């Protein structure tokens, strides 16, 4: 976030914060309402994750000022994201591997 901000800049920011607040409340209602539809796990998970990602992005971009943040911060986050994705891939790959082993054991 730029250090040199005028009062009118900050006032504009405040308006944005309140709009983001309203959007987050609305999305919270949507995610709870959707959960009452009793969807199968796959689609339910997908919808919940998409809404959570939209909400999370709003918080990160506007409240945490990632929008317009310096490149070095983006690199730190990209680094963390790469490790996070790597960890999930390892976990899921090992799960799929176990399932494959189980299927093979059943066949033989």
């Amino acid at each position: 976030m730029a250090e040199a901000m005028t009062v009118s800049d900050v006032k504009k920011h405040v308006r944005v914060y309140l709009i983001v607040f309203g959007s987050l409340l609305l999305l919270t209602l949507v995610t709870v309402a959707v959960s009452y539809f009793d969807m199968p796990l796959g689609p339910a998970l997908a919808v919940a994750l998409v809404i959570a990602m939209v909400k999370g992005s709003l918080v990160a971009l506007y409240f945490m000022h990632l929008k317009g943040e310096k490149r070095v911060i983006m690199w730190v986050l990209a680094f963390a994201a790469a490790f996070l994705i790597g960890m999930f891939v390892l976990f899921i790959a090992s799960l799929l591997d176990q399932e494959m082993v189980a299927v093979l054991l059943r066949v033989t």
Partner: protein
Amino acid sequence: MELLIPYEVTPRRDTGVNNAKLGIWLFLASEVMLFGGLFAAYIFLRMGADAWPGMETFDTHEMATRADQVLSVPLATLNTVILIASSVTMVLSWASLKMDNFKGFRLHMGLTILLALGFLVVKAFEYGSKFSHHVGPDTNIFLGIYFVLTGLHALHVTGGIIVNAYFWGPGTRMWLSGNERDKAHFTNRIEIAGLYWHFVDLVWIFLFPMIYLV
């Protein structure tokens, strides 16, 4: 002689940001891995479980087929709203300082702390209702990961309350000194504390649907 630490509020030429900001983002990156690891554990446990949540409901004593039959979605929704509101008041407290409005800062920071305490009270009710049914983290895998994830998050909320309470109370000395450099320093501290607080909100935004709703 006063020891001056460079780049505490002014950006470094090579990184383009001040050291405090880079520091908090490095810390938050490590936090991403901490919670990410537990999320991965949650997925692993859930995919490997024969039944989820794998326990009886408290009222009908039939096997629950969804997590929301044993957890309180209304209370968790209320807590989601509380935490989002506290994120807004936190960012408004920083904006108040940017507008040289100390009273506004005190008000919004005070609200942030109260909302955070409210979150913990609701959480205590939630935990209490589990304990009153004689179930806890040792009951089954579902409750085990539920208590670990929400408990670690609640610890983060508690840490945030302590830091924010310091900045609401004794920490304001820095602003009240009236020295422009100290005021800029204090505003920066609030922005950094805010980054942590928004992260705590962000974690809950993922925890809530994953544990309670899906």
